[in-house]
């Protein structure tokens, strides 16, 4: 009988457990978590704050008790793992005990970055990642005490916090240290348009603003002082400047790491029988062929399932890993497919704009490098799929059905040609 360890119980951990149980009815599955929560989706936090869903729905797979019963898991809640011996697959726990396993999955996820900047611990300064973060912000906004807000970081989380605030008719300012918003995904012109549209919704936006520190006055009112000297005052300051993988405990484990644990398409690490999945890992990005941390819920679930299958003796690969960022806020949507940072000045640029869509996309020879689209939510899956197909086969053409859908959805033929032309085979 095999003994499995799952370290970290989010989307990846849950799907791994499920996949293991499907293949191995008898195996012993131990789940370690540093919280007592059922698996939850960090992406849902801002929706909970907004009131779009009840607290229970933060936990898409149900409560811990039922999950444990259904999948017959040995749960170890509030039991942080402090170390791992990669060669012997032995976990070290906070009480110093050591437990060996046959198969180990690391699925510890990521945490919001809170750098050592003065003032980040002040009351009214928040981050947004965990269930506690969400409950805290919701209570704060519900209290009615927040008259204005400052969001630091025009990231995917930052923009959702902006939405939470704006939907309550609270004046909001968004600042970012980069020269334009959505810096890691948007072309400057895309960002410019998104910024203009965001400002039209009443949000003040300021870029090139690196935070120096935050001060509070005697009433608790906060002021963020920037390295530029600019000052932004607000009752609430949300710091949304990125996430970092939860891999500190693996320092001496022998696992290869970059910005996360390096895994192959099978989600296997360099140490036999040790796997990693979800936001803590770097899987193969099929566009660049390099390892890359692409932390989205879908990847976490899929990677977990792939890892679980392989741990239980099956054979599965995760092959749809591309950079893909969807920002959907205030009835607005912006998507970036592919790697904006890989674009160079000599690439072929496609641009299109009408009342409905904004598109900027880049191609290098046969390969699509990056696509920015605004207003395209209903077609994002179609375009993403065509992008993936073009990576697998640069000469693949959009199929007839996709062409028809894109045409009907109002995309110009020129964009369809950019995506690879038209085929009727």
């Amino acid at each position, binding site marked *: 009988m095999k003994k499995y360890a799952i370290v970290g119980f989010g989307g990846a951990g849950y*799907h791994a457990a499920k996949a293991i149980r499907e293949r191995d009815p008898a195996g012993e599955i131990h789940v370690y978590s540093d919280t007592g929560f059922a698996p939850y*989706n960090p*992406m*849902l936090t801002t*929706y909970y704050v907004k009131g*779009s*869903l*009840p607290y229970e*729905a933060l936990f*898409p*797979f149900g409560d811990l008790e039922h999950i444990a019963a259904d999948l017959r898991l040995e749960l170890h809640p509030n039991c942080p793992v402090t170390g791992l011996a990669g060669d012997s697959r032995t976990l070290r726990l906070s009480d110093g005990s050591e437990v060996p396993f046959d198969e180990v999955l690391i699925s510890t996820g990521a945490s919001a970055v809170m750098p050592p900047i003065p003032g980040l611990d002040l009351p009214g300064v928040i981050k947004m990642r965990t269930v506690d973060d969400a409950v805290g912000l919701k209570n704060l906004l519900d209290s009615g005490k927040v008259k204005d807000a400052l969001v630091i970081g025009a990231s995917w989380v930052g923009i959702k916090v902006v939405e939470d605030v704006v939907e309550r008719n609270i004046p909001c300012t968004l600042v970012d240290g980069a020269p334009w918003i959505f810096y890691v995904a948007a072309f400057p012109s895309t960002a410019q348009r998104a910024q203009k549209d965001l400002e039209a919704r009443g949000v003040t936006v300021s870029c090139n603003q690196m935070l120096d520190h935050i001060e509070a006055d005697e009433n608790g009112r906060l002021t963020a002082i920037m390295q530029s000297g600019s000052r932004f005052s607000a009752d609430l300051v949300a710091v949304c400047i990125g996430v970092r993988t939860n891999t500190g405990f693996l320092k001496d484990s022998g696992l290869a790491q970059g910005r996360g644990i390096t895994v192959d398409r099978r989600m296997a690490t360099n140490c036999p029988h040790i796997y990693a999945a979800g936001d803590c890992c770097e899987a193969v990005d099929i566009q660049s062929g390099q390892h890359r941390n692409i932390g989205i*819920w*879908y990847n976490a*679930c*899929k990677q977990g*399932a792939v890892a679980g299958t392989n741990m239980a003796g099956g054979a*599965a690969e995760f*092959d*749809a890993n591309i950079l*893909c960022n*969807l920002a*959907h806020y205030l009835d607005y*949507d912006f*998507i970036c497919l592919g790697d904006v940072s890989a674009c160079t000045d000599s690439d072929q640029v496609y641009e299109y704009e009408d009342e409905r869509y904004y598109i900027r996309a880049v191609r290098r020879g046969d390969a699509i490098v990056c696509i920015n689209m605004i207003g395209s*939510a*209903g*077609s*994002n*899956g*179609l375009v*993403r*799929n065509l992008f993936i*197909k073009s990576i697998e086969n640069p000469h693949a053409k959009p*199929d*007839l*059905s*996709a*062409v*028809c*859908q894109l*045409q*009907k*959805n109002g995309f110009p*033929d020129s964009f369809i040609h950019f995506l690879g*032309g*038209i085929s*009727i085979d």
Partner: protein
Amino acid sequence: MKHVFVFDPDRCCACSACMIGCMDQNDIDVDAGEACYRKTFDNEIELADGGVYCAYLSAACMHCTDAPCIDACPVGCLSKDPETGFTVYDNTNCIGCKSCAMACPFGAPRYRKSDGKMVKCDGCNERVKNGLQPACVRACSFGALTCVTEEEYQASGSNKACSALIDQLHLRKK
């Protein structure tokens, strides 16, 4: 018994009876801006050689065996009905984040503005369970759109299925 939608483009004329059947079954209020779950296409595609191809198509959720929308949903709204094999959903907790739409290679899930939730074709799951055809299939006069059991589909040797596309996109469990 697992079911498969089969589409024969040589019989379709994009008459949209399938869409009307869907509207009737699902009480679609078009005046409120709602749209049904199936779409037809009467497109003219200009080809590189100067020719024009007249396409007549009907498309909705393909009910992929290994449906990417299910895992893409952060709230867990989507699932497979073990009896029919259709990709079904309960959008009570849907947050309208459009992740399912981003995962779907066919553009099937749709955002419904009136309540901010996603909706899609559920294969008329309950009708099929009760021995009836999906409403769109029932409304097709030309045999362009049919729904058969997986066994029937395999036996027919047809590759006209929506399933052919699914295979092409590796959306079937390997």
